[in-house]
């Protein structure tokens, strides 16, 4: 099996039906993408496929093979994506576990809807759970990053 992850072609020896989540974590050692529910209910495993947010627990390796996969490790080369900066300016994380998924969801949202309204942000981010309750700061961080996010993801180019 082949996957293009964060701009690099990777070869895998695995069942094509393995969810992308476990292939990334267990086989490619990319552990920034988190397991939360395995059912596409919590968003902790959110990655980009061709720039669009997808739940990696709901995508097989075979399905992902044709796409450019971007994980939190590839969101920016040096952690300076405008949303990553905004997350730090607003001190968003508490335990931090869901934040890679939140960042991947937020970056796809702002790429698709750069001027998303407050309600659109709330709707767009409601697939991503945070048990610590960092939602007000996630919302504030997204608002402050509006206008700074590049229109196309690097991996979606």
């Amino acid at each position, binding site marked *: 099996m082949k996957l293009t992850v964060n701009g690099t072609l990777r070869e895998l020896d*695995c*069942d094509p039906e*393995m*969810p992308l989540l*476990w292939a990334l*974590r*267990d*086989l490619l*050692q*990319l*552990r*920034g*993408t*988190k*397991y*939360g*529910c*395995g*059912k596409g*209910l*919590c968003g*902790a495993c959110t990655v980009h496929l061709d720039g669009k947010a997808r739940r990696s627990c709901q995508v097989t390796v075979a399905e992902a093979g044709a796409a450019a996969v971007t*994980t*939190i*490790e590839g*969101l*920016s080369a040096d*952690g300076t994506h405008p949303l*990553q900066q905004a*997350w*730090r300016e607003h*001190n*968003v*994380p*508490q*335990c*931090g*576990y*869901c*934040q*890679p998924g939140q*960042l991947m969801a937020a970056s796809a949202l702002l790429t698709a809807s750069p001027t998303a309204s407050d309600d659109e*942000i*709330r*709707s767009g*981010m*409601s*697939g*991503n*759970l*945070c*048990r*610590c*309750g*960092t*939602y*007000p*700061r*996630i*919302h504030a961080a997204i608002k402050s990053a509006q206008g700074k996010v590049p229109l196309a993801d690097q991996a979606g180019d």
Partner: protein
Amino acid sequence: MTVLTRVSRRRFLQLTGVAAGGLVLGAALPGRAALAGVLEQSSGAALNVFVSIREDGTVEIVAHRSEMGTGIRTSLPQIVADEMEADWQRVRVIQAQANPAYGSQNTDGSRSVRDFYPVMRQMGAAARTLLERAAADAWGVPAAQCAARNHSVVGPDGRTLGFGELAARAATLPMPEPSTLRMKPESDFRYVGHGLPIVDLQDMTVGKATYGIDVHLPEMLYASIERSPWLQGRIKALDADAARTVAGVSEIVELRAVEGPPGFNPIEGVAVLASNTWSALRGRGALQIDWTRSEHSEHDSAAYLDELVARVEGGPGEVRRRRGDVEAALASAQQVVTATYRTPYLAHAPMEPPVATARFSDNGCEVWACTQTPQATRQAVADALGLDVDAVVVHVTLLGGGFGRKSKPDFAVEAARLAAHAGRPVQVVWSREDDIRHDYFHACSAQHFRGALDVGGRVTAWLAREASPPIGATFDTTVSMNSEGGLSQTFASVPFAVPNLQIESHPAPAHVRIGWLRSVYNIPYAFGVGCFVDELAHAARRDPIEFWLALIGDDRLLDFSGEGFSYSNYGRSLEDYPYDTARLAAVIRALADRIPWKTPLPAGQGWGFSVANSFLSNMAVASKVEVRDGRLRVLEMHGALDAGRIVNPDRVHAQMEGGMIFGLSLALNGEITFGGGEAQQSNFHDYPVARMLQVPPLIRTYILPSEAPPSGVGEPPTPPVAPSIANAVFAACGQRIRELPLGRHFNV
């Protein structure tokens, strides 16, 4: 009396797994018993917290408590750094392994800052004193003429030596007598009282933070375990043929339960070991297991809660606290108000489920776990494997949420037993379904209240009866009444100036593993108490906030001793941490001043208020809701907190925001039910937790300034939330909801 002791570099290495620099010191404090939790594995050893300075000037500060989102890995080292005049930019935080040398590492009960604030200051002051003395020696001047300033010691004529240059010399000096330590005036603090960003912030935003699930060892196998669906079930028959054929599966292991109470022991189950998590999950899904029945396999939570309600409504229970003559006052009252409340079982559902990794060798067992209780984890693993506790090393990862679930190290014991069996490292991954079905559940409860009002609308009697399965039953199955510690969480410790008061309990035998969840029994009890006060206020035709203040009465320090109740005060003495009603009233007034409480609202909207004292702190919450066409929306939540001196205000605001949202989530959605002994929920579709759309767009948090000793922060914001919302619902639409979650009654 504190004793400061030097710690060798070798010892520092043993404790942290990290090589120490030039200066290493520790503090040994007697009185550890006062700090230790009830469930702490007692070792009798001294409490030590360590600071080390490398030759390059890097100050290494050990974080001995677990980071699960409160910011404690930052807040405690920030106190040390401030007191010792270290430059925060040159501080490196090291996570401690499990070791009794640190005193309690049991990260729960909202007590990391409140218990360790003085210890951290002492550690910092001792380090600073040694550095100043080392500079004095180097220069041949009196130490009194040397003062540490921002990572250097400044001499009489302005000359300086850096901490790194002084470290080796400082390490040779005798430890200062604790009584000679000069503490910094609090007005000179540079870090304490300031919202330093957490030390893990960068890692958390780039996906490099390491949680329990991110540990990876060479040759490691992944395990998924099918466990008995009900308490005390045992494997009756196992067919693992299909599981063995799943690609990647290497072994099937029966994990037999030990006899006795649940404790921290694994539930009986069958483990599938595989080369990756997905293969382990698939193999586990192919298992065919028959389970034996048990005395708990008929547990039906709806019928059980009905029974508890019948008990509290049916008659007197065991009296736990008594003042005056409640029966006489009720009999002669102008008006008697009666209400019964019920609250459900709850699951913790941290975003990272329980995960642990273990490696077994001839030398012992090494465990990596997202644990809130490193020392209890170490002891439980040693007990399970028959090892000396010294042969067990526990590495503490970051926790992807804890909320009390990760205080119970059953999952680490599973990993240790499987690693010992397999002869290879094993990581046990709980699926979300495992997490929700096999939790240490938060207790359900039934509460019955009767209040007497006189002609003037004053409360003359307060009668409260509860029945709720006790946490103690998890460790001793004969226990069926809630403990004084449990009842000290709001129910029996009500701060009311009423002439007649009686608190009673009925038994509630446990049929599931009962555990503590963020703010513990304050969740149900603050709901019952907070709603009933509101009901009394409306019956008395009084404004609820004014009614609360009148009920609390004159400013005074509470003393429960004459009323037959031994108030736990969360493990601290009333001398050190008095229960001061003036501070409780102050948070109420502070909140009332900040919300337009009396401004008329459109039809269908209403404000609700509640307040709770918990973990030695006071928190008031006001919620504004809208109820329209059966749909309930929380529009605003405002909270005011007095938690004494604040170390990191940004993290305290964050805990208030998060704790209130946690409370909102439980109030609107939280419910676990049982049928046939099995939990009937399994994932976020049927055990929903709050999403951004459910969270009010306006959340405001206020911290009351205080110079009192620090008190709890992580848990106190949660308890007043549910009653504030239920009371707001009544104000909005006149419906009095006495049962949680509110999602049972409204579209939420």
